[in-house]
Each structure stands twice: as structure tokens, then as C-alpha cells.
């Protein structure tokens, strides 16, 4: 029994070590969470438009060896915003500590078409570095005409966060024939995805190695330190097989004596 447990411990330790080593060579990326972003505020005119979307509160757990990245996808329906991919002059995604979320609330509540540029400037100066901007976004027009904004793998620095997307559209050729419509949430799909990348630390590798060594020690010590007990067990096993063989021989003999073919 001790040998079995030792072998099991060694196997688990070795598998953990293999995972850790593989994680160091090829960092493993796992999609861990997905959040829907809902439209919080929009301002649209024939020439410009601002859409502010926000996510729910994101809570991540700080774990040794894990680093988190954020990815996002937005779909803007052309029938609503009446713009193409090239019309989107700016799209910014702000990832804030939840405690700082009131800043954006203040911005959203005082935003008007007249003060749009001024307010955006203020916001940028307060928030400093934004998580992504237009340059980092992949903007493309989908076959059915929707505009897709995609960003990948921004490192996350906080574990208790709120995310806000501010998309600024400036139409190159405004079309008065198509009046702007309010973007219903269904026409702006926004999703945030958090990826966890595992890059095992030295401590984790040490813990895995200790488990593997402990297992090997237990398994080998049980085999080496108790040869007598094992010997006895082998004798019992052999005796059992001899007894079974003799039993079947005796049955065969009995069958022959009765004049039947042995089974």
C-alpha cells in the first residue's frame, strides 16, 4: 500500500513538473472570462459620434505565475451609425481600478456634442495612459457591412477593474438622407475577454520537484527496506498459484477416472 502511494505521489509530482516545464517553454494562454459591454451613453450627429460602453466589474485573483491579458471585440452595425471602418477616427479602451470608475461617470454625465473634444482631452489628461487606442485596434469591415474593432492581449495591471470603451466616429461624407439613430445595445455588441497566461515561477517548480522526489523516496524505501515482507508475499502468491494448478490437475484426474475428457 505504501509503495502504491509512493508511486502515485511520484507520478503526480512528475506530471506537475512536466506541466511547469512546458509552461516555462511555451507559456500557456487560457481564455478565462468573457464580459458583455453595454452602451452607457451615445452622442451622434451627421458628422461625429461618441459611443461609451462599459463592462461589469471584473474581479481577478492574483495568483503566482499567472499574468492576465485583456482582449476586446466590438461590432458596430452600419445601419445605425451610418459609418464605415475608415470613418472611425478613434476608439479607446480604458481599464481602470474600480475605485477610479467615478471619473468616467463624471465624464459621461457631462458630455455634450459641443464639449466632446474638450471633455475627451480632459479625460485623457486625467487617466494618463489608455489601455488601447486606434493604432492598436484592428478595424475591419465585415462582409455584412458591420464594423469590427478588435484588440488583443493588453497586459492587465489591476485585479479589481472596470473597463470603458469610448469610440469616436467622424464621418468622411455625412449623408443627410440617413438620419442618425440611437445605437440600441443590440447594434453594438461589445465583449471583453480576459486571458490568463501561465509562466510558472521558481517556487512552483520547487514545490513540484519536492513532491516528485518525496514520491520516489517513499516508493523505493518501501521496496528496499521491506524485502522480507515482500519475499513473504511472493511466497504466498506462488503457493496460491501452485495450489490452483494442483487443484485443476486433481479435477482433470477425477474426470479421466470417470471416463470423460478433461475440460
Amino acid at each position, binding site marked *: 500500500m505504501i*509503495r502504491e502511494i509512493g508511486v*502515485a505521489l511520484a507520478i503526480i509530482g512528475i506530471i506537475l513538473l512536466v506541466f511547469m516545464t512546458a509552461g516555462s517553454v511555451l507559456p500557456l494562454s*487560457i481564455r*478565462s472570462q468573457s464580459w458583455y459591454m453595454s452602451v452607457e451613453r451615445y452622442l451622434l450627429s451627421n458628422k461625429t459620434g461618441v459611443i461609451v460602453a462599459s463592462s461589469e466589474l471584473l474581479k*481577478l*485573483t492574483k495568483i503566482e505565475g499567472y499574468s492576465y491579458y485583456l482582449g476586446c471585440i466590438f461590432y458596430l452595425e452600419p445601419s445605425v451609425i451610418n459609418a464605415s471602418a475608415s470613418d472611425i477616427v478613434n476608439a479607446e479602451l480604458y481599464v481602470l481600478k474600480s475605485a477610479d470608475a467615478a471619473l468616467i461617470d463624471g465624464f459621461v454625465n457631462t458630455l455634450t456634442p459641443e464639449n466632446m473634444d474638450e471633455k475627451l482631452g480632459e479625460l485623457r489628461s486625467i487617466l494618463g495612459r489608455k489601455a488601447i487606442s486606434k493604432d492598436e485596434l484592428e478595424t475591419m469591415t465585415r462582409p455584412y457591412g458591420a464594423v469590427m474593432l478588435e484588440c488583443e492581449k493588453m497586459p492587465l495591471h489591476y485585479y479589481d477593474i472596470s473597463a470603458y470603451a469610448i469610440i469616436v466616429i467622424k464621418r468622411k461624407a455625412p449623408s443627410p438622407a440617413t438620419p442618425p439613430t440611437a445605437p440600441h445595445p443590440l447594434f453594438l455588441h461589445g465583449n471583453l475577454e480576459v486571458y*490568463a497566461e501561465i509562466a510558472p515561477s521558481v517556487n512552483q517548480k520547487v514545490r513540484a520537484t519536492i513532491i516528485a522526489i518525496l514520491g520516489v523516496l517513499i516508493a523505493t524505501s518501501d521496496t528496499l527496506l521491506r524485502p522480507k515482507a515482500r519475499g513473504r508475499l511472493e511466497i*504466498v502468491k506462488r503457493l*496460491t498459484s501452485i495450489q*490452483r494448478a494442483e487443484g485443476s490437475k486433481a479435477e482433470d484426474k477425477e474426470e479421466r477416472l470417470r471416463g470423460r475428457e478433461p475440460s
Partner: protein
Amino acid sequence: MLKWVAAVTVLLALIHTWIVFASIPMIMQPFNFLQGVTAFTGMIYAFLIISALYSLASDLSQGGAQLFLSQPISRVTYVLAWILASLGTPTLIFVLSIVLPIVVIDPSLLYLLSSSGLHLLILETLELSCFIFLVACVSKNRGATLLVGLLLFFILPFMIPLLLMMIYSPIGAQPMRDYLFEVYAVFYPFRYALISFGRNINSASYVGTTMLMLTTFALILFYSKRRLEVT
């Protein structure tokens, strides 16, 4: 047995390590942490126990026990050794295959196991295993042991809720249906928690399952002391 243990450990360790690595960042929903996976790997754990109890029935029916008992070993000691080997070792291996990946990643995350239903799975498996152990001791028949094991672990836990849902309507108050599900919860607390989507098991079910397990264990000891005959 060692080959079986090694093969099952490799399988369990691979599945649990991968799942722990991948689901640790998702601990925003800790209520069902690992529960879906342990429902599957618990079957591998049950299979290991059934194969060990099959060996016990072989030992009792084919003369192995006779040879062991010709040594200065009491029947109770022999039976207790088998309980440790057939129930204790697989349980320890199963628990280690889940706990160790978490310990390696971050020991402070061990609290997550409280929401995994692991304790319910182990309680359920040990309770059913004690019953199969008793069947193996009394019948000394490999076929009967295997049949009861497969029935208790792989057929009844799925058949009973299915039958109950076919007989009684799932909607509205149905005292008889609820009562039968309470009985089901005593025999299968983990499966009950799983099909009721994490609804809390009441303490009466816990006590019922534990009492059932202890009673079967006492019966095993009584039988091995007074009635166990090896041929």
C-alpha cells in the same frame, strides 16, 4: 494492483492538473469549482475501488485468503488490511491528484476545495464501497461483486433520478417526489448536489450517509470476526 494504480494515477493526475491550471483563473464562480470534472474522474476512482474489491473476492474464493490466514493474522486484521488497500489507497490517490496541483500553484487557494463537493464525492464513494465490500465478503463471488459495484456506481445513480422524473412531474409541489429525492440524497449526496445544481445538501442527509457508511463498516467487522469462513 500496482500497474492499475499507476495507470489510474497518470489519468487522474493529467486530467486534474490540466483542469486546475485552466480553471484557477476562473475563480469568479467558485460555487462549482471542479465539480463537473470530479463527477467524471470520480468514476475512474470508483472503478479502481471496484477492481480492488474484485481482487478481494478472488482472494476469498480462490484460496489466497486461506494462505494468508494460515499465518498468525486474525481475520479482522486481514479484512482491515483489505479495507485500507481497496478503499484507503484509491481515496488517498484521488485526493492527492486534486490537492497537489493546487498546492503547487498556490497553497492559499486550497479554500476553493470547499466549494468543489469533493467531501460529498468521497463520502458517497466510501459509503457505496463499504456495501460492495460487504457483498464481496459474504458472497465470495467475483461476478456478484463486480455486478453490485457496477450497479451501485454506474447504473443506479443515473437511473433513479431519471425514473423519478418520468414518474413525477418536475413542476410544482410533489411531496412524494421530494421525499424520494431526499432518500436519493442519503445514498448519493454528490450526485444529488450535482443534479440539483449546487443546492445545499441538508445536514440530515449528511448524517444519514455517514450513519449508513458506519453501519456497513460495523457489519463488515462483525461479519469478519464471527462469520467469515475461507475455503
